[in-house]
């Protein structure tokens, strides 16, 4: 049994990141690590590079990590993390995806054994979901 791709959800709000992770885990049947990096370090609204770094390393099971971000500063924080990473570590990718829908799609794909590229693609395809 090989490792699954991990998922990290970075949001301005701790509750939002944790709620989305809770939902995504439902689809992952427990084998996928879905980690939340929500809120500022003090728990208020904001984004934290340190929380993101911790979440990424916890989500990493050796098969890479896909990060999904909610709004502007979550995206910028993630890009900053990616720029800082040493070459040669596990693959970490920022997916272009709607936050909740992308998280659920990514966790589903990861649970099915998809690699980083396929999980990222599944997350992005969530832009095509429709609700009416």
């Amino acid at each position, binding site marked *: 049994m090989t490792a699954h791709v991990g998922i990290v959800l970075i949001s301005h709000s701790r509750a939002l990141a944790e709620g989305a992770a809770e939902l995504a885990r*439902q689809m992952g049947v427990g084998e996928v690590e879905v980690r939340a990096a929500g809120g500022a370090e003090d728990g208020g609204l904001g984004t934290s590079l340190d929380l993101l770094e911790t979440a990424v390393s916890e989500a990493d099971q050796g098969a890479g990590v896909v990060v999904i971000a909610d709004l502007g500063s979550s995206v910028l924080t993630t890009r900053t993390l990616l720029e800082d990473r040493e070459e040669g570590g596990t693959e970490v990718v920022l997916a272009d995806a709607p936050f909740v829908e992308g998280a659920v*799609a990514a966790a*589903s*794909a990861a649970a*099915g054994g998809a690699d980083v590229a396929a999980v990222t693609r599944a997350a992005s395809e969530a832009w095509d979901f429709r609700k009416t």
Partner: protein
Amino acid sequence: MDTYAWMVRFAELVSADAERLTRLDSAIGDGDHGSNLDRGMRAAAEALSADLPPGKVLMTAGRTLVSKTGGASGPLYGTALRRAGKALGDASEVGAAELGAALRAALEGVQELGKAEEGDKTMVDALAPAVTAYEAAAGEGLATAARAALDAAEKGAEATVPLQARKGRASYLGPRSVGHQDPGAASTVLLFRALAETAASS
């Protein structure tokens, strides 16, 4: 047709099979279909009383399901039963023809709400053939028609196994949804088993 007995029996069958339904939902969903529907139908059975008119029984069960189920199956079964109840209107007796019209209304309600077609790997794959089979056999009486509906629902549910889900949570799995029976189709079989048993014993 005693719709009260039908609903009570449906609640019993769901309760008895809740674990199996949940297991089916664990494979291609979030593993709660059995407990959802059990919660909903328990509450529905409690909300019912034998002296309600048949249509009112289904409307009440439907409304309770919508409120108490907690998953997609709540609004779907809830709408099905409410539409069926509405179709029965105030009638105090329900014959084979009236029940056929009610089942057709239930199917239409489910499809209007959930937008699933046959082949999308949902409860519609059991419900649609069951309604059609019922209508075809309605001339032979309620018990026969209900039995035909049950057979068709069973075949329809079986036939969801090789399908890829295109609606509901299982659609997130894409090709990995293939090879498993749809939990909502499986619970629809129980709805028709309850109907067939009730019709046979009346």
